[in-house]
């Protein structure tokens, strides 16, 4: 049983917007079911999570130190904690009833060391092997306690020592560095996604050309509708992936307490995402125009290589700018279209770019996107129906149809 033939009333002319939506929808639905894409995305997310775990592992050196105490009082615990603060570690005091219990705890690794008779003549510290940090800690605490005791025995009344007031000269320096590091991670992700999705656009263009389906498509729509549908569809997918990574990254960083200023972190991430949108529009158009010149996937490399050099340069400068965001190189290149998404994102996050600089960079970028979409669209339209060898750039531009 076959369905009845459709009636003519089912057909209404597509508006250009609907055409673009249809093309974009096909790009998304095909790509999202592609195994390679799904695996690639999973790997990227695992990488980001791995980076976070690595950070946490490095920072865990400042974690708590557990010290067992046998026969101590509140003063002993207090002294250990104060000493811990000075050494940059949080001390947790565990009281044990007798030496045997403490010994077992040390052997089991429950505590890093156990202090026996702290107030006695000969205090003893049980450790599994070499003393290390816990030895310094306990030594300091016991000394302090002994000193206090002797002083109070001698009748000296201790006054609270004066607290030192800290006056930071560049209060944001640490935060700036942190933000620059976040921006750098963001820019590396931005760079990878730019190239990845630019590559997707290029492959899609060549696929349509090599399978000749483009002739059937162009019988129903204009080249610009096909091009913008493809770029917008893949762009939305790229943006979604960027946002997923950003959310996982920010949530992870907050959950693991890797960063100090969550507000600033979110601001930096948003900056990077915004630059991704501009960078993608720029490179996707260039890649699409370049790809339209060839008819086989094998030839894609030869036309894309020149176009991929620019983002590589941008990444290198951005890496350098993260260390020295005020350098002349970083300052100048942060205005160059194509480089600005990476360099300006880093400068901006480091707090070294004035608002007007950002505005100018964005404006230059927008103007060049407009120019590239226009010229690229013409190359694309001119080269699309020419199959066979590589189409010369000049011929594609000159072709009317």
């Amino acid at each position, binding site marked *: 049983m076959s369905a009845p*033939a459709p009636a003519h009333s089912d057909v209404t002319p597509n508006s250009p917007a609907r055409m673009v939506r249809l093309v974009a929808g096909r790009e998304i639905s095909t790509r999202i079911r592609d195994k390679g894409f799904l695996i690639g995305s999973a790997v990227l997310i695992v990488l980001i999570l791995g980076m976070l775990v690595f950070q946490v592992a490095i920072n865990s050196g400042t974690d708590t130190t557990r010290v067992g105490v046998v026969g101590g009082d509140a003063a002993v615990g207090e002294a250990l904690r104060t000493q811990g603060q000075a050494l940059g570690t949080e001390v947790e005091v565990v009281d044990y009833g007798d030496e045997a219990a403490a010994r077992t705890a040390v052997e089991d690794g429950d505590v890093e060391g156990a202090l026996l008779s702290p107030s006695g003549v000969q205090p003893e510290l049980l450790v599994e092997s070499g003393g290390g940090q816990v030895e310094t800690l306990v030594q300091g605490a016991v000394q302090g306690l002994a000193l206090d005791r002797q002083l109070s025995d001698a009748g000296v009344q201790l006054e609270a020592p004066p607290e030192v007031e800290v006056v930071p000269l560049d209060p944001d320096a640490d935060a700036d560095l942190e933000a620059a590091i976040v921006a750098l991670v963001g820019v590396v992700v931005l760079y990878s996604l730019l190239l990845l999705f630019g590559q997707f656009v290029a492959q899609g263009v060549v696929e349509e050309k090599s399978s000749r389906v483009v002739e059937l498509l162009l019988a129903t729509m204009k080249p610009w509708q096909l091009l913008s549908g493809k770029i917008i569809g893949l762009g939305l997918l790229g943006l979604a992936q960027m946002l997923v990574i950003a959310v996982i990254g920010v949530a992870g960083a907050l959950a693991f307490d890797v960063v100090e200023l969550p507000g600033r972190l979110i601001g930096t991430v948003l900056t990077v995402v915004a630059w991704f949108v501009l960078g993608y529009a720029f490179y996707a158009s260039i890649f699409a125009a370049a790809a339209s010149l060839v008819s086989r996937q094998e030839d894609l490399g030869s036309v894309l290589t020149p176009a991929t050099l620019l983002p590589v340069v941008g990444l290198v400068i951005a890496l350098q700018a993260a260390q020295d965001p005020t350098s002349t190189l970083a300052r100048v290149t942060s205005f160059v279209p194509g480089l600005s998404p990476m360099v300006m994102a880093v400068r901006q996050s480091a707090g070294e770019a004035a608002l007007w600089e950002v505005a100018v960079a964005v404006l230059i970028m927008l103007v060049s996107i407009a120019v590239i979409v226009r010229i690229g669209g013409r190359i694309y339209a001119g080269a699309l129906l020419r199959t066979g060898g590589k189409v010369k750039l000049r011929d594609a531009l000159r072709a009317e149809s």
Partner: protein
Amino acid sequence: MLEIDGLVKAYGSNQVLKGVSFSVAPGQMFGFCGSNGAGKTTTMRIAMGLARADAGEVRWTGRPVDDAVRRRIGYMPEERGLYPKMKVGEQLTYFARLHGMDAAPAARAAEHWAERLGLGERRNDKVEKLSLGNQQRVQLAAALVSEPDVLILDEPFSGLDPVGVDSLAEALLAQCRRGVPVVFSSHQLDLVERLCDAVGILARGSIVASGSVDELRSGAVGRQLRVVAPDAPDHWASALPGVRVVSEQRGDTVLELAPGADDQQVLAAALATGRVAHFAWREPTLVELFRDAVTATPVVAA
């Protein structure tokens, strides 16, 4: 009425079309013939807006064909083209939607045409997994899925086995019965002769002959007469006025009569030699008409 009117196109110094004109009525099947490189594909691509004519235009129901009209044309390009990694059903649905159908009717139409062209079982297979013949069916289904008002098919029969040819021919005739004008190009002239109401022969950038096959026959230069007179001596007909002997073999003679020559005089001469077993005008095949048309000077039937 689909009208192709005076199309001119040059690629650089290569003048491909020098004023190609023909028209196809609703429900008519038009066979577009011509030697390789004669300009058939260029003509069709101009009609589909894939190439721009230097002069001339294509009209449908009296109006120049624009993008809106083109979405109502089913097209099959010479270079077959489908997304290799897309499933048959999804692909057909997509093309139906590009032609302006909504999602649900498009899916229904895709199912209908896949079923009808014998692809029902392969709907969920990727196109690249299909045999060439089946890919060709998908290609045709892509042209038909939006129930177009006009069909323009470039070499739709090439590469099909006889069964495939029959089912494609059946599908095209069904479209004609719906009132759709169908234009297709082909080198298989026997097929064109069998299917088409009208034929256009393109040579050196213009239509050198067009009309129904019968019209082409009646207008053909030098009509041929076959006479079988077993007892006739050699050269029995060579002296007759306006008659040229094309071939002669043991009493089986093919004669070409100049316009105005009297066939009854030939019959009388034949009877004079004895028994006449066969006397009839020979219907030239389209192949012969084609050969004459592309080699001789232009002849356009009324």
